[in-house]
């Protein structure tokens, strides 16, 4: 895990290494100063030696300045290292995600991917900063301080030989007790937030069914369990402070007692006794710091693991590999295709698919939800790989193409489509970065999205996140225009006019027929109307092609089709057509 994460350090290796060094320097000064202070008292003040005091004061001032510079420099390098590391980490995850195939994307939920890239990265960044700053600081301070006590206080150091193990064991026991409770608290927090979120989105349902009281009860339950867990965890956590304080006090008393003896025995000065007090505090506080680091690291460990899961997932399709870069024509052929989202051995959602579609044809696909319509078309742009058999575009297996080249020539208007925040223009440029104004206008006209022209800002109209400032039908038409700009050889519409009324739908199809002549057009729809006039209509059922034919042929022989027509058009087969 660490190895995977450490790859993101890169150019920030400098500050990452310098920071702990600066911290060690700062700590050394921090430990040195109390010693100098002790000397000043013992040799200067008691002896009334003003010269000595001046000399040592200068030394202390210098040390303080040095410590200050180390500290300030370290502050900057630490910030640089951790921000840089986080930047690289974000960069790496983002780039890695771009390489993901549809199958890879399906294996994570989108909300979890978002959390991994935001909250988890922030947690890891915090720990990283801590690692560079405190992680060295605390143990180094601990060791230095022990050495200094041994040096100035002599045998007083024995006190710590007893105190340190005691405090370490106490802290360890405490952590072990508290940790699982905190984990539970975090989970409960997520649950609580979920309940709030659900009620924000579903408030109309709640109110329509008068379920306010019920929801409040549910919320109060999880709110109470958070409270109880927190109290339980903190009941232990708050022991920490008094515990450490108690040990510190005991140490001080012991130092008082034994120190007095040492001074009497002439083995120690008063100033040395005082600096021993300071070191005692340093030793104990560095112990507490170490304990805190361990807890925090273990909290962010979960975050690091989640990030590594993403980074360790290997993209299973190469975006820019070798392979054909030209798609010769828009012929499509399925040969004995079996397909399952889970791979071989899983239940198939496409079985024995054999069909040939000629370049330039308009093909309609009908069938109930779950019959495999979307799965079928997703194989053409190689969004997924077939489980068995092969899919050919332009007489070559789709796996022989360079993926980018293939997808540039095969446009898919997805069922779950999105616009991105920006302008209409910037969204259309997704289809073709260099599209001219004329080309954009043409695409918008074909897609019947002329509402853009009547808008005040035209092509520069603002698009909000997810395109939420447009109606469902408008969004779908913009998505169609975007796909048209790719000037594709195959264009696939996956139920992409469901929110467009029948008349406009008909106009779009008419325009496609007239203005996008060369491209093969595949239309998935739930409306018979939308496919009536197609060159071929494919009827899907339960993962198989149940029938293929023109409207007239199917009207004659296919019962499913007849039933659909009669339900939707009331038996009037010409209703809603283009004429």
């Amino acid at each position: 895990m660490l190895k995977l994460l450490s790859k993101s350090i890169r150019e920030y290796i400098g500050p990452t290494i310098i920071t702990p060094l600066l911290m060690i320097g700062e700590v050394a000064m921090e430990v040195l100063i109390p010693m100098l202070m002790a000397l000043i008292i013992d040799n200067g003040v008691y002896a009334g030696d003003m010269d000595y005091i001046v000399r040592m004061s200068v030394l202390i001032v210098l040390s303080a300045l040095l410590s200050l510079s180390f500290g300030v420099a370290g502050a900057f390098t630490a910030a640089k290292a951790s921000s840089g590391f986080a930047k690289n980490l974000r960069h790496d995850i983002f780039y890695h995600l771009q390489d993901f195939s549809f199958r890879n994307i399906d294996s994570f939920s989108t909300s979890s991917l978002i959390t991994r890239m935001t909250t988890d990265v922030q947690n890891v960044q915090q720990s990283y900063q801590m690692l560079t700053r405190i992680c060295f600081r605390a143990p180094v301070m601990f060791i230095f301080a022990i050495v200094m006590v041994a040096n100035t206080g002599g045998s007083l150091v024995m006190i710590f030989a007893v105190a340190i193990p005691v405090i370490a064991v106490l802290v360890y026991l405490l952590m072990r007790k508290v940790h699982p409770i905190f984990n539970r608290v975090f989970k409960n927090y997520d649950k609580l937030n979920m309940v709030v979120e659900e009620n924000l989105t579903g408030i109309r349902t709640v109110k329509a069914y008068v379920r306010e009281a019920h929801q409040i009860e549910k919320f109060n339950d999880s709110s109470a369990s958070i409270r109880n867990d927190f109290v339980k965890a903190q009941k232990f956590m708050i022991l920490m402070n008094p515990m450490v304080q108690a040990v510190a006090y005991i140490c001080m008393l012991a130092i008082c007692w034994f120190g007095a003896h040492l001074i009497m025995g002439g083995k120690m000065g008063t100033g040395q006794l005082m600096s021993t007090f300071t070191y005692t505090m340093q030793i104990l506080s560095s112990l507490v710091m170490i304990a805190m680091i361990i807890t925090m690291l273990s909290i962010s460990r979960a975050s690091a693991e989640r990030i590594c899961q993403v980074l360790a997932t290997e993209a299973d399709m190469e975006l820019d590999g070798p392979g054909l870069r030209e798609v010769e024509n828009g012929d499509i052929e399925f040969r004995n295709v079996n397909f399952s989202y889970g791979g071989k051995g899983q239940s198939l959602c496409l079985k024995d698919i054999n069909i040939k579609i000629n370049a330039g044809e308009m093909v309609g696909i009908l069938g109930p939800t779950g019959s495999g319509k979307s799965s079928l078309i997703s194989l053409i742009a190689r969004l997924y790989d077939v489980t068995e058999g092969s899919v050919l575009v332009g007489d070559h297996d789709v796996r022989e193409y360079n993926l980018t080249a293939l997808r540039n020539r095969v446009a898919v208007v997805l069922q779950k489509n999105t616009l991105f925040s920006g302008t209409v223009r910037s969204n259309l440029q997704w289809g073709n970065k260099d599209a001219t104004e004329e080309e954009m206008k043409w695409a918008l006209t074909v897609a019947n999205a002329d509402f853009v022209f009547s808008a005040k800002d035209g092509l520069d109209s603002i698009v909000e996140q997810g395109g939420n400032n447009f109606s469902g039908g408008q969004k779908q038409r913009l998505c169609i225009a975007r796909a048209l700009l790719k000037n594709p050889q195959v264009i696939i519409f996956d139920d992409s006019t469901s929110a467009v009324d029948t008349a406009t739908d008909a106009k779009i199809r008419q325009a496609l027929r007239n203005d996008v002549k060369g491209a093969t057009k595949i239309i998935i729809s739930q409306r018979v109307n939308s496919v009536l006039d197609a060159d071929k209509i494919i009827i899907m059922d339960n993962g198989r092609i149940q029938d293929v034919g023109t409207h007239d042929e199917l009207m004659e022989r296919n019962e499913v089709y007849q039933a659909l027509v009669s339900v939707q058009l009331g038996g009037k087969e010409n209703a809603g057509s283009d004429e």
Partner: protein
Amino acid sequence: MPGPMNRRMGTTMVKHGGRTFKRLFSEVFRGKGLRLAVVFACIIISALVTVFVSSMIETLIDDYVTPLITGQLDSFAPLFSAIVRWAAIMAFGVLSVYVYTRIMVTIAQDALMNIRDKMFEKLQRLPISYYDQTQHGATMSLFTNDVDTLQQMIGQSLVGIVSSLLTVIMVLVTMIRNSWQLTLVVIAATVILMYVTKSVAKKSGRNFAAQQANLARVNGFIEEMINGSKVVKVFCHEGESEKDFDAINEQLCETMTKAGSYSNVMGPITMNIGNLQYVVLVFIGSAICIMAGDFASGYTVGMLAAFLQLSRSFANPISQIAQQANFILMALAGAERIFEFLDRENEVDNGYVTLVNCTEDENGNVTESEERTGRWAWKHPHTDGSPVTYTPVRGAIEMHDVDFGYVQDKIVLHDITLYAKPGQKIAFVGSTGAGKTTITNLLNRFYDIQDGKIRFDGININKIRKDDLRHSLGMILQDTHLFSGTIMENIRFGKLDATDDEVIAAAKLANAHDFIMMMPDGYNTMIENDGEGLSQGQRQLLSIARAAVADPPVLVMDEATSSIDTHTETLVQSGMDRLMEGRTVFVIAHRLSTVRNSNCIMVLDHGRIIERGTHDELLAAKGVYYRLYTGAFELE
């Protein structure tokens, strides 16, 4: 604990700090006066002990070590008894720290729980217009960020600042008693420290705000790109989005480095100002000591040593206060937002006509019943003192000349008049924005009308208690919202006391039973994340089942079957017909095939009913409906 709380520093804007603090204080400590007194006493004790410990060394040196050296004392026995005494005092201090933190844990967690519960209850009681006008993110942030900062404040900062303040005062008093000259030095150093802290904090705050803005931008971009990742792939847009991402990621890194640097720098600065102050103290102190004989008799080395120790325990609480004050300001800003939220007006309900169980004898006389009879009546008390009347619930709906606008002067529905007799099916047809959904939202009083009257079984709906009105209206909305829980629980949402059998019967009616049985745990399958993994069609089936189990006399179906493919729809249709039987039904549908058998079809345009009649009548009239039906007219 690390967490989101340290991500919002710098966004402090407190308008009525004093008032908010007072309210928060009473919210947290109301009825807990005794415990508050104990906490306060314990804080004082522990502060006293802290000061005592700082001056312990003086006593040690002056009263025991020096006398031992000079031979005024000849044994360690007095020192031993002193140490025992000190130990007792320290134990007392440790104990008091434990007591007050322990009490505060419960007080803080209770207060947080109460505030959260109050907020959620408020959330349930707010009128629909609140949800229309407020972004979800803003409300969520009240529950997460703002409550988090409160937790920090009540749990730690409040006690921390009081104890630091007490410590500072006591240390100051002790220092002045020891030596006012040296105290001046300490005060001077403190002033410098505060000045530096303030200016660094200002810079840091500015950069922090910039960092938060950039972070929000990067996170927003990530969210958008991940949600649209399949679209990115289909358009081979990977390279472009990588480039865009790099640019804002770089900016974020820059501001983060700056903000981080300034906040990291505080520690070393504070510490070393302390060190320099120490040197100055030693210098002046020693000078005084050495020259003590001349003008400052009574100064001892022990005194100086103690003073030095004291001066060190002075800087610490001062920087604590600065830090905690910052937290408290942040928390007050959050508390202010929370109180503002809690002070919002609830959904108003002046209804007094209620829904009661009843029995009906053969003469049509209705009597109220305590038991569940399966029959319902409106209980209508009259203001003029005449006896309470009971009207059986039948499901007749009338609208007379109804005008409505979401805002006062922008009317979106005009002169809506319609009658639905019990058991009739009324359909609304029209383009998006014509006002179809709005009409149904008036029936259940999500919004109140501007003019006109709506009657339910002849009773003005303004007189009916909202809860009861909604109980008698089943709504199947455009978007189905599922709540985390089992499928069983989600259907039971319609009627909390429904038995498992009733739920299953309802699911069968809606044709949802089959797909539910195919799920891993059947009816006990857990639903999470608003039904992730369920298709839109399946969700709508669940929503229909939910309405079926509620069994209301009036049903509103807003595009209830829009996402069910026609194949499945025919399956659902029979169940729907059974569900609609004997009920008054309002249907909104895009697909005209679903409204054909309605008793009356209303064609809406720009908030007005422009045509009404049965399917055949409307076709014969060859108006808008005819053109819609034949596909010659745009419907969006």
